[in-house]
């Protein structure tokens, strides 16, 4: 076990930490930074619950090591809400369209869709289904997640004409 000093930003704030070389990014966020919004569902990179953004690219935080994020910018579900408490359009859309039930897969879904809608502002339902095909949900049957994403796309487009 070797400790490494890393410097990164998490949700825009600078973080300096000493991390064990084998500490996963997910465990670092959850248990060292207490950002428990990022969830772990399978620990082998299939379920997508732990999806976060690293330098604006989605990543499985269960498959990354904390030490790999030295010098990078990490964004988690805790960074979606505006500082004044306003919900991100995706969060608002999930709430208004019953896009979640138990809420465990939700942070991973949201982070996957933040990246996707940034690149695809006018997706079809089929596009959304493909985009979230790396995120498992056992509760919803996906339909209302798809509807939430489409509604969020509309809201984002209205927000940024």
């Amino acid at each position, binding site marked *: 076990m070797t400790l490494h000093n890393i410097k990164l930003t998490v949700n825009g704030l600078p973080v300096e930490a000493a991390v*064990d070389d*084998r*500490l996963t990014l997910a465990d670092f966020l*959850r248990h060292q930074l*207490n*950002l*428990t*919004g*990022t*969830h*772990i*569902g*399978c*620990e*082998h990179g*299939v*379920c997508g*619950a732990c999806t976060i953004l690293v330098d604006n690219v989605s990543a499985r935080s269960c498959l990354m090591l904390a030490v790999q994020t030295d010098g990078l910018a990490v964004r*988690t*579900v*805790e960074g*979606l*809400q505006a500082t004044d408490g306003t*919900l991100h359009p995706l*969060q608002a859309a*999930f*709430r*208004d369209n*019953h896009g*979640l*039930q*138990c*809420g*465990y*897969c*939700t*942070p991973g879904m*949201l982070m996957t869709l933040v990246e996707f809608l940034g690149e695809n502002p006018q997706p079809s*339902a089929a596009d*959304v*289904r*493909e985009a*979230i*095909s*790396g*995120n*498992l*949900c*056992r*509760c*919803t*049957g*996906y*339909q*209302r*997640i*798809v509807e939430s994403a489409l509604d969020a796309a509309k809201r984002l487009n209205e927000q940024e004409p």
Partner: protein
Amino acid sequence: MSVMGKSVRRIEDVPLITGKGRFVDDVRAPGVLHGAFLRSSQAHAKIQRIDATAAKAMPGVHAVLLLDDILPVMTRRRMMGGNRSGKLPETLIPTALAEDEVCFAGQPIALVIADSRYLAEDAAERIEVDYEPLPAVSDCRRGIGESSPSVQTAIKSNLITSYDVGYGDVEAAFKNATHVFGDTFSQHRGGGHSIEGRGMLVEYSSGSFTVWASTQKPHDLYQMLVDLLELDENQLRVITPDVGGGFGPKLIVYPEDIALAAAAKLLKRSVKWTEDRREHFLGAIQERDQYWTMEIATDSEGLILGLRGKLLHDLGAYAYQDVNLPYNSATSVSGPYIVPAYAMTVEVGLTNKVPVSSVRGAGYPQPAFVMERLMDRIARELGLDRAEVRRRNIIPVDQMPYEKPLKARSGAAIVYDSGDYLACQAEILAVADWDGFPARQAAARKDGRYIGIGMANAVKGTGRGPFESGMVRISASGRISIYTGATAMGQGLATALAQICADQFGVEADDVTVVAGDTAMIPLGLGGFASRQLVTAGSSVLLASRATATKAKTLAGHILGVAAEDLEIVQGDVKIIAAKQLVVDKKKPQSISLGELSRILRGAPGYAFPEGLEPGLEATFHFRTDALAYANATHVVEVEVDPEIGEVKILRYIALQDSGRLINPVIVDGQVHGGIAHGISNALFEWMGYDENAQPVTTTFAEYLLPTAMEIPPFETLYKESPSPINPLGVKGAGEVGTIPVTAAIASAIEDALTPFGVRVLHAPINPEQLLEMIEEGSKKQRPS
């Protein structure tokens, strides 16, 4: 404006979408130690030697515990609960850690407690175990044979119980029948696979324990820990934090739970364990393995005269709770149809596999598959439309309530309380354009496409008793709180209960706080399973809300000098109704807040207390019921099968459900969606594999197929609301109903698509390889050689 029946936004959602939810692994406890289990690598073996010397010597390791290490802090060797009926062999009830024999791969043998989970897992790998492998039973059908090895050496026969269920003169029914058709059916096991696994944190403080558990049954866990660890009730509190899905597996108190709590008591330290996905495959209960051999007798018009056969239920290696699933199955097979005579032999067999208990549907999807497949068989043999055969046999609405000559486990009669099954079927068939499908199918065939349509009906008893708790209490601030033993795991329970309560106080759902599954706040409860909570907890909350509102009005009437009937509660204030305000003294107060009434009912030393009223602005009810509220559904599905690769694509999925009165339609719709997705998954994807030595072969999501948004189609959902007459809300359960008919409907559609090949679907899941084999078989028969 009443909030009942409205799709209000869920009060659960804001924390969950902002990362502020609190699941069990999110709860922080100072100085907590972490547990990791060493699990059996063998499906069946004697343990000859365990050497934990190296593991114990590792830095950061506090303990490596075997069964003998934790027994001194426990009152008994075996966990209770698995054997309320007293009919099962004693050794079927598990111990918290293995004795000297392991009976399934994944069974916990040792618990390592260390400073971190990383260290605990390292140490678990260093424990040396010498196994003497014993023959293992993988196939329940072979396992109950006389020459089979035993699943446990202490148990001579793997056929642990068998019994008969039935009524009427079956012999005569079959003798007088025009037609008798027989088939064998099976369904394979899958897991619950909530995306959050199991997990538990035991906080230790001065001899007391606070347990945070991802559980569907907190009060069961509480009672079992009080008993097994010999605690005073005030030494233990079980709190259910946010639960990341249940689907059945979390209704069990597991050996892991007991071992962990015993470790906390032994070490006098806080300990936690969070299940990983592999452990969920290896240790969390699974369900659906059943084998049915059935015969159905009809007259010349396809009217059912009798049904008989045999059901073999695979229980796995241990009984984690009473063996109720095969009884559910055997008593529900007739579904919505009139079956005048019935005789089943039920056999329960053991295998060296993960123990079996309820997964969403709980013994209902298998009989629905059997019955609906038999209905299709009758239709085909008699040249009748599949919907018509069902129509002829369905229980008509004028026979409701309909008593089946069978008893539920509680001993209560099985009485379908309400529902118009025929109208449901007619409505969905019209929406699906069932009658127009043959033309669409013929057109597709011309293009070389194999499309098919299928249907299935289902009836599900919901709202299992004997009771659920519901307490309503108003604080000095006027805030209304609900406390219940019902357990939230994503269904929107808090919102639904809040709506029921808010309606009585003229407030919105988010003006009500709901605390579910905290044993310190409500002493009794049963929890979340059997699609029961809206029926049972909902009714208790309704009655408690009404009683609390009545109490508030009575007291306010004394204070305001008017009769209670002249008062209404609006936005948290008890007011004199407008029509009466004219006749009362305007100088006197016209209203009083609930908070003020609460303060008065808390009492003040030395001051007068309102006469005739009990202290506290609160009420508690335990709505008692033994009868079930029967929900029903009809599903219609269109599929396309690619005969070259055996792939099944769902083109259209329509579901009609009658869950009685809907408190929040969108929440119910979410339950139905999730239920259908689970059913599709059972029908086409989920297969928990074991090799011939009972070694699990699907222990990751790469090997075990849990469908994604690409495999699950959009759903069209329709609702009928036949209020249940047996509870004050008129509601019926929703969570499992959507799952039950799915496999049957998809099988029906696949057979219809592949009629040219004569394919018959009798086993689930239906995978491409099996389908291809059947298609090839069918092509050979077709071709003149």
